[in-house]
């Protein structure tokens, strides 16, 4: 195992490498206000991050990643365009796998640039790929933006689309919703009874709690309206299923997705972006013909990414987490920007894992 000093030395070198590419080095506090992270990720983050507290400041989290504080910093007073790099510890609870580190060094590179997103995607990917050169890693890529555009363009109610978008990162719930909206899953008996009741709120059950009768009535109205809405068509459903199953090298994936766009024309702009990204990667010298693309990649673990996503894996060491990951997070800048927004993409590397692989290769 590499020593901490070795890892820090490698981290410093990687940070210098990103500085040479034009990034400004930034630091963020280890203790982050819990509220921001809880608002973004919900209660799930408590299973992944360490929470501590004091009587004055309330709940704080040990920095689970740098992206959120770096985005906040940029949205407050960043110049445009901007490139940042950082190196330091992040902390993750590991309650299911004692072999995974709960504290490790991360080095990152983030680009905030509205001019040419495809070029920025290619820049971040190519710089990270170059830093990992010689480790013989498999790169996987995807693009959550294609699925998001597919959902936004479905010929169904806004309410259904909002519900699907909300669960884009939770594949099981997404699937369950889709089956229901497509009329494939049976209506639960309680729901059927509720819809048939003439005055469902008429009972003498005491009204308790903060959720008001008006809110309950609103939801019943929404459920009634939904029961009247036509199911999502087979055409669109098959289109979505085909889209989610695409797993090919980049140029072939694009070709298959162009076929899907016959049924789901709303993904065409996203596919144009993918095509522009492929060209930009080529221009950077990346071998796109050998680069894997999975349309479902990054759906479960990378919640704030909403466009291009990537990861680098050591195939000889399936026990290791990805050595590097990254992606585009335009929507996160909007959420943290108080009205402002800017297209942004970033990636992180784990120097400790890089050293471990190098040691293993010797």
């Amino acid at each position, binding site marked *: 195992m590499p020593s901490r000093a070795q890892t820090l030395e490698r981290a410093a070198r990687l940070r210098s490498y990103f500085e040479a590419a034009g990034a400004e080095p930034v630091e963020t506090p280890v203790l982050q206000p819990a509220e921001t992270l*809880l608002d973004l990720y*919900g*209660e*799930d983050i*408590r*299973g992944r991050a360490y929470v501590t507290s004091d009587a004055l400041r309330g709940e704080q989290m040990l920095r689970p990643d740098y992206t959120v504080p770096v985005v906040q910093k940029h949205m407050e007073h960043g110049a445009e365009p901007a490139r940042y790099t950082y190196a330091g510890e992040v902390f993750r609870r590991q*309650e*299911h796998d*004692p072999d995974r580190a709960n504290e490790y060094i991360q080095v990152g590179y983030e680009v905030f640039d509205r001019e040419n997103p495809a070029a920025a995607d290619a820049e971040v990917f190519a710089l990270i790929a170059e830093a990992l050169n010689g480790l013989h890693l498999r790169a996987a890529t995807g693009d959550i933006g294609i699925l998001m555009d597919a959902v936004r363009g479905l010929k169904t109610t806004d309410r259904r689309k909002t*519900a699907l978008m*909300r*669960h884009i990162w*939770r594949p*099981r*719930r*997404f699937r*369950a919703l889709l089956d229901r909206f497509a009329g494939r899953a049976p209506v*639960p008996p*309680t*729901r059927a009874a*509720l819809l048939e*009741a003439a005055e*469902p*709120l008429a*009972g003498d*059950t*005491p*009204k*308790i*709690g*903060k*959720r008001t*009768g008006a*809110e*309950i009535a*609103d*939801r*019943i109205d929404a*459920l009634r309206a939904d029961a009247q809405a036509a199911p999502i068509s087979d055409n669109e459903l098959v289109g979505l299923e085909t889209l989610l199953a695409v797993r090919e090298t980049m140029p072939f994936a694009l070709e298959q997705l162009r076929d899907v766009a016959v049924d789901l024309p709303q993904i065409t702009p996203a596919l144009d972006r993918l095509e522009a990204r492929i060209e930009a990667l080529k221009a950077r010298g990346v071998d796109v013909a050998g680069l894997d693309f999975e349309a479902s990649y990054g759906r479960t673990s990378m919640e704030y990414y909403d466009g291009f996503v990537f990861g680098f894996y050591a195939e000889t060491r399936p026990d290791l987490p990805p050595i590097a990951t990254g992606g585009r997070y335009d929507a996160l800048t909007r959420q943290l920007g108080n009205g402002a927004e800017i297209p942004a993409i970033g990636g992180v590397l784990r120097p400790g894992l890089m050293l471990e692989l190098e040691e293993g290769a010797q």
Partner: protein
Amino acid sequence: MSLKLGVPSKGRLMEKTFAWFEKRGITLSRTGSDREYAGRVDGIDGMSLVLLSAGEIPRELAAGRIHLGVTGTDLVHEKLPRWEQQAEQVAPLGFGQADLIIAVPACWVDVDTLDDLDAASAAFRARHGHRLRIATKYHRLVREFLTDSGVADYALVDSQGATEGTVKNETAEAIADITSTGETLRANHLKILEDGLILRSQATLWRSRVARCADADKAVLDDLLDRLHRVA
């Protein structure tokens, strides 16, 4: 050294545990005054009784400070991540049955499933500006269950007792707690979600996988397990 058995120090759980062992020819009893937590074991040699709070027994098993312990499945699963590595179930004792469930106000006629809870949570957050609060003391079990089920926009708030009252007091919108008959839930105008069963629990005899066992202790343990299995 002796083989240490941890048993809940008071209440029905202790009495029923004593009765369960009695049926198997082992007499457990408290010694000294009512307030003194000391006990003795008759009917088997080389075993000693440790009286503890039921909530501390999982931790003591995991630390290997007791070889055997009686406590609920709910507490072992909540307090010990990867509990299988640390404790082994010897025998369910057939009492202390309770289900860990999610319950919402009975007046929520539009909410019967986790799917409904998720949709109501999204609307609640948009309306009230904070996430829908679920009061519980089983934070880990509830969070993992809801993550697995894909429920979002909720917040867990800690409640160590009288959890059923939190909704009426408006410190939570829903609860996750153990119930055996559902009586307390009904009295507090709450109903269980159809698919809201997180865990079925009952009082269980556990063996620590990490407690160090001298040869003599091992012989006592084998003898004990043998006797328990003959009856069961």
